[in-house]
């Protein structure tokens, strides 16, 4: 628990620090990063801790966004809008999770895809909320101390949600609930034999992740003020999946790092070339073929080699050899686990 609080404080400091040094455009991009980070972390939970690869996570992101836009025609209270988005996505993910939980692997993937596709078809085919043309809203967040309109204000507002989500996920995964979930992913029949009903734990995680994705979608509206059916597309879901993998599968913070890397790399690469999706595909293939895990794993490796070098410089050889070996083993273990 102490570790969790410490890392949360570290994260908070980092978030506070960004607007101090960044240009307005980088703040804008970082806001995008934080939203996508919440989204990717929630997907990371069900994929990396629950073993549920979902191609339908964009359904919840889009649903959160659409809820805010649709309701903002009548109310502008941010608590009501975010609350409605949260409740609706929780209910939706509870129901769809319950249905999808009958299947695993590719079947699970397809059922979740079906949900998001149905939403996509409804949102683009019906004339509600702008249909295929999408719809914009003028809504601004007001938590009781004035409209948040500046980009820095928006960044901090979303930053709060980001840090909260991180904290929540950390607490959840280190709680008994989270440990059982991981146990189910690693060996479902053993957990069943131990008297746990795997479906309950998986559905719980799926619902939590769904609500979080819904909040990310709702926050997205405060940044973009525009919904369109593309939010429900396979592409959005695939992008979130990429973020999870680039960042580091099987960790909480990895997907957030992945979101950061993805948004910034896409932004800069696409300025130079139209072949972004080719590059993206190659990144995918490289991640799989190199079997080195995501950024977070690479960072661990890099950090450990720095630590090792320092240790070499400061003598005490015998002991260090042992330590270094232990360290390497730990890192390797973590990587194999996450693969």
């Amino acid at each position, binding site marked *: 628990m102490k*570790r969790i609080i410490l890392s949360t404080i570290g994260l908070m400091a980092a978030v506070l620090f960004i607007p101090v040094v960044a240009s307005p455009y980088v703040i804008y991009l970082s806001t995008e990063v934080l939203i996508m980070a919440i989204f990717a972390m929630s997907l990371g939970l069900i994929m990396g801790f629950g073993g549920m690869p979902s191609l339908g996570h964009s359904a919840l992101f889009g649903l959160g966004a659409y809820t805010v836009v649709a309701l903002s025609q009548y109310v502008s209270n941010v608590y009501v809008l975010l609350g409605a988005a949260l409740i609706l996505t929780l209910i939706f993910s509870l129901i769809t999770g319950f249905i999808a939980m009958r299947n695993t692997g590719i079947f699970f993937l397809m059922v979740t895809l079906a949900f998001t596709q149905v939403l996509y078809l409804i949102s683009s085919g019906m004339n509600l909320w702008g249909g295929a043309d*999408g719809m914009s809203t003028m809504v601004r967040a007001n938590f009781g101390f004035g409209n948040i309109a500046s980009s820095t204000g928006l960044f901090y507002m979303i930053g709060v949600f980001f840090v909260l989500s991180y904290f929540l996920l950390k607490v959840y995964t280190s709680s008994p609930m989270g440990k059982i979930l991981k146990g189910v992913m690693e060996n479902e029949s053993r957990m069943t034999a131990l008297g746990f009903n795997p479906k309950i734990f998986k559905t719980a995680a799926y619902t939590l992740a769904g609500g979080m994705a819904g909040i990310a979608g709702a926050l997205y509206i405060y940044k973009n003020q*525009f919904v369109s059916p593309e939010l429900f597309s396979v592409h959005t879901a695939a992008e979130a999946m990429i973020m999870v993998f680039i960042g580091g599968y099987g960790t909480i913070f990895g997907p957030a790092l992945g979101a950061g890397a993805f948004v910034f790399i896409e932004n800069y690469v696409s300025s130079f070339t139209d072949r972004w999706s080719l590059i993206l595909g190659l990144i995918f293939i490289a991640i799989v073929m190199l079997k080195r895990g995501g950024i977070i794993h690479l960072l661990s490796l890099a950090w450990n080699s720095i630590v090792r070098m320092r240790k070499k410089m400061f003598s005490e050889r015998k002991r260090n050899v042992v330590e270094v070996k232990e360290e390497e083993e730990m890192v390797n273990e973590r990587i194999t686990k996450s693969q």
Partner: protein
Amino acid sequence: MKDKTIINIKKTMLTKLSVLFLGLVLVLTACGGNENAETGSETEASGQDPVKLGFTLSLTGNYAFMGEGVKEGIELYFEENDYKIGSRDVELLIEDDGGDPQKALQNYQQLTMNHQVDFFGGGVIGSIAYALTEAVEQDKQVPMINVVGSGNSLSWEDQSDYSWRIGFSSIQYAGTQGEDVAENIGETAVVVASDYVAGHEIATDFVANYEENGGEVLDVMWPASGTSDFSSYLSQIKQTDPEAVFFFFPGADGPRFIQQFKDFGLGEKYGLIDGSSVLNAPSTIESVGEDVVGGQTIAHYYPGLENDLNKQFVKSYEEKYSKTPDAYVVNGYDTGKLIAETIEQAGSTNSDDLVAALNDGISFDSPRGPITLDPDTNHPTQNLYILEGIEENGEVSFELLRTYEEVAMPTENPGYTPQK
């Protein structure tokens, strides 16, 4: 760091994460900062700021063929003018949005915040045109050229002083066609339109004008966009037995529909009227060939147009890209020209001056004929051409049947009963 190795590792995990995260942020911030620094140095070198033009176009995805055309047109125009407007250099920044309005909005932010462009352009498809118009209207920082987006309300309820159109609108096309079909083809028609907003709008405008001119619409059908097999609709048309079939399928569905219309033997029986300007697209002719023969379409541009500017335009386009230009290329070309004209008339790149110049009503000669931007609707008043596909010595081409001169965009929403 000696005794409690395990604990230390855990602690280092923590610290290193924060440190590396911050490091990452700093690096990226530096990247972001670079952009402005570079511009600064360029300014000193040339003595005068280059004019920065930023575009978000759909260069990948379903609508890539439209975005590609616009891009080629823009580049052709500035190449012909040595990348200069007056004495100032032109810097073109073109981003891809893949047909996704969310990505287009991000590109807009990047181009305006990071690159501080003087003029902005985009809107290859309807949803993007709406999203961008809304964004430039809220920010009121930089004027935008809507390169294709044909939604009517962009000239009515959603009109913005900051968004100007260079293409056509649903009512300009379908309204004219409603009149034309009633007068020249027949008095009964079936409408088949793609089941999304633009399809509904086009169908509404066609039906209203067709009926005003004495036609009767027997049936309206709405295939989903992305329909690959139209046979069920085609057999329904056969049962209804109209004189004319008016269809609207932008993108890949269009050529598919044309081809299947012929395959199912409807070509000889009913007049095929295209409301999506897809029949005469060079790529359609290339891929479905003689299936377009006998069909009629409307266009604000076609490559066979008889004027000197167009001949020159077709020649230089063919030299550069070795294919025939289509309406999207002309939209891009005219976008370049409109921006150049506006900046010259305004005498600066200050956005207020630019908007004022646009509001004075800019006219110029385009390969499509003379056009005037109407400040009441922010829409070009232009000639529209009714064309028919013909075959001569094995070559498929389009013949001009009728010209509707100087068709203006209606200033008010006529309030037709919406179809669907």
